[in-house]
């Protein structure tokens, strides 16, 4: 990859994670002029978040399961035909019949880019879990903790508690423990019996994916060996502390048990990044059971808008191997649309990726089932916790308004829930779940907030210095 100052490309790829890299490699191999845009300085995505070049990082993501991704990253970094546009946020996407225009915002202000095809491979983010106390400094997504470790070699306030439903927290806790961080407890919301039932439902898949499960098992063993308790059936009731996190309260209301801690990693699942697809008017669907908006696509990963493609967690959170397969399929689809390869060639070359994607999807479905956050979310929906941290709107204020309307955009207007700096990235999923429950409707029938420009807040002076075309 090379730094580049062009403004017009055949293909613009948003996101330099496994999906974006895979698509770029397919496209570069057939001679497409493509650029990859990312908020980070270096490629890798969240899963291979790289430390700054000046850091001497030892044992950086050296687990076995990362090996194929590390290999792809190396090839990507060495592919000179791919332009790398790091440290930029994409704040706007305007699809057009003659090509699409993309506005990015970075340290040098705004930049306007255009391309015949745009691929959105923007990944996902930790589902914000609004347990009482979640806004205290020291409470964060488990993925954020992992990022601090991978990218900066930083361990958050010790000892660390992990709480959630998603088994990924075992791996993160083990990584942190191995890096010398003190972990106080890993607390699964659901009982081992419930999780076991999910595994039995998917037992064929579980057997076929023995190595991945083995990794989780190994993480658990490592933690136990390091003296870290891994407990099940430990619903998080509250995060305590005056001006920062000092403890996590578990158990039922009448038998609270407090684990003292300096920080807490919340791991209840992941939501697809959907600001850009929704702003550009792409069709999306509610992504059950973890929630959030997954962008709809056809078999070549093309969205409802011609020439705008999606791959990876943007289409539903399913893990890096699937993201990579989808990136490859999208890359081949775009190459065929550009006339660089024949449809027949694309079909033939995509076949193995479709095959492995299909197999991995079954594992992703099992993980979804194990990690289902519904019970945990119902608990906070019934509490008085703040669900919109930007505008300080409580779950009880939302419940009260739901008595007169269950239209989420109306509740937003009346309560200000979702009107703040994050524009609903934190609270929209909670509001939608609460509204669906109040109306007795299925989540798949719900409408979300209207996506608007800009996808990230942008300085008005910057916007005027480099006006949109």
């Amino acid at each position, binding site marked *: 990859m090379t730094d580049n100052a062009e403004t017009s490309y055949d293909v613009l790829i948003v996101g330099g994670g496994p999906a974006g890299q895979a698509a770029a490699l397919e496209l570069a191999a057939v001679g497409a002029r493509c650029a990859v845009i990312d908020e980070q300085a270096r490629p890798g995505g969240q899963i291979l978040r790289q430390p700054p070049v000046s850091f001497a990082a030892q044992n950086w993501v050296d687990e076995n399961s990362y090996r194929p991704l590390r290999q792809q990253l190396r090839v990507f970094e060495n592919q000179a035909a791919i332009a790398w546009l790091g440290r930029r946020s994409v704040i706007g996407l305007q699809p057009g019949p003659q090509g699409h225009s993309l506005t990015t915002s970075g340290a040098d202000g705004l930049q306007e880019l255009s391309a015949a095809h745009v691929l959105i491979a923007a990944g996902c983010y930790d589902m914000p879990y609004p347990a009482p106390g979640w806004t205290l400094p020291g409470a964060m997504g488990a993925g954020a903790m992992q990022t601090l470790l991978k990218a900066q070699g930083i361990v958050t306030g010790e000892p660390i508690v992990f709480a959630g439903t998603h088994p990924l927290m075992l791996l993160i806790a083990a990584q942190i423990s191995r890096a010398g961080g003190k972990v106080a407890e890993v607390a699964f919301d659901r009982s081992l019996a419930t999780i076991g039932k999910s595994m039995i439902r998917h037992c064929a898949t579980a057997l076929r994916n023995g190595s991945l499960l083995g990794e989780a098992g190994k993480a658990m063993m490592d933690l136990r060996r390091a003296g870290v308790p891994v407990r099940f059936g430990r619903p998080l009731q509250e995060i305590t502390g005056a001006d920062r996190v000092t403890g996590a309260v578990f158990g039922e209301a009448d038998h609270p048990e407090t684990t003292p801690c300096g920080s807490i990693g919340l791991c209840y699942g992941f939501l697809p990044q959907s600001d850009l697809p929704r702003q550009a008017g792409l069709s999306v669907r509610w992504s059950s059971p973890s929630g959030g908006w997954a962008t709809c696509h056809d078999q070549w990963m093309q969205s409802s808008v011609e020439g705008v493609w999606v791959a990876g967690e943007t289409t539903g959170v399913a893990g890096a191997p699937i993201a990579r397969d989808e990136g490859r399929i999208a890359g081949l689809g775009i190459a065929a649309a550009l006339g660089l390869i024949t449809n027949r060639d694309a079909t033939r070359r995509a076949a193995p990726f479709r095959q492995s994607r299909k197999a991995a999807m079954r594992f992703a479905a099992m993980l979804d089932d194990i990690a289902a956050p519904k019970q945990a979310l119902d608990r906070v929906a019934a509490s008085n916790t703040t669900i919109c941290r930007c505008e300080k709107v409580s779950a009880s204020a939302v419940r009260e308004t739901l008595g*007169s309307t269950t239209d989420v955009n109306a509740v937003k207007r009346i309560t200000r829930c979702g009107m703040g700096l994050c524009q609903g990235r934190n609270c929209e999923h909670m509001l939608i779940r609460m509204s669906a429950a109040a109306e007795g409707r299925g989540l798949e029938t719900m409408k979300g907030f209207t996506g608007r420009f*800009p996808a990230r*807040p942008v*300085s*008005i002076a910057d*916007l005027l210095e480099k006006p949109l075309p």
Partner: protein
Amino acid sequence: MKKIARRSVEHWTNSDVFLSDIDFLVIGGGLVGAASAWHLASAGTKVWLCEQASPGHGASGQNAGSLHFQIERRFLEREDGVGREGEQTAQLSRLAVQDWRDLERQIGRNLGVHMEGGLMVAHSAQEVRLLETKAAREQAMGLAVETIDRAQVQALAPYLSPDILAANFMADEGHADARIIAPAFADAAQSAGARLLDATRVASLQKRGALFEARLEKGEEIQTVTAAKVLICAGIWSPQIAAMAGLHLPLFPAPLTMNATARTAAFLPYLIQHVGRRLSIKQTAAGNLLIGGGWPSRLHRTGSGFDFSRAPALVPQSLTGNLQTAVETMPVIGEHELLRSWTGITAVTQDQLPVAGEFPSLPGLFCAAGGSAFTLGPTFARLVADQMLERRRDEADALLSVASPARFESLNGFMGR
């Protein structure tokens, strides 16, 4: 159908009317519809308020909430200048000032009303002359507007650009919270006995004998209701509803652009407008700066026309044009972050004047739509409710004459029913 006893409505009802299911059907749950329903229900009548989504879903909840009582820039742009219509609108503005001053007390709910003054600014000598002419006309019409010079502008609002040469100040101007106003009125209307039908569309509307019959659809549920009188106040959807009754209501969609910054500490108590450029700036109680002023956005199109069901597309030139104008007027705006740009559709008539009153060719059918319906909305609601209730009817007719749908009779004369 059962006969319903009523208290205060005998003086307008006739024997046929007693056969209707309800007295009044109000179509459109925006500011005007919700406030009308509140007035009508408060008079002891049986009112249904029908809203296709939820109260304030349309332009009432999408506009930037300006309470502007000075003569509008768009009227000054007209070739014949500020005519008779301008004076009549000014008369309505005077009433609107009184209405807004008392609304929160009357309905017992917070509407975020802030009337701490408004400045309409000028950058050029020519614009200053326009301000002075305008202020003279406004004073003659009983609006308390005064032209102040650069030093006075700076003393009042030091954050305005030193390039501003003068401004017209009106102490009554300000803003209200567009987010909450229609839901608040809908809530008050329900407390007064009105029935709100949300997520409900009107599928047909026709006059049968002395009554209006409407078919209402909420998802799969369909019901038919008869009403003595009907008020159409459905913003840009109003022409479609009027067409169901066989009438022209010539309104045109005006897709506009609004912008909000991230919150900032309170510093701006005034409504800021520009006499020569499209601009409005205000600061909400929460701290966001709202920047608008009538910059266009782009309607989506269908095979046969415009698609009002989708939010209009943002036009980049409008976004930057609006923000550039804002920064040239108030440089500090450049230091803020743009949080959200949104679009919404208001409805305007060809002569830019609003529409409010009864259709002469179809007695019993009323409408209230077409521009300035936020600032003048509570007043339209009050006066149209008076007309519908036959309460101080002559006075209401006179005040609304400038807005009467009678001016479409030349078109509706061709319409057989």
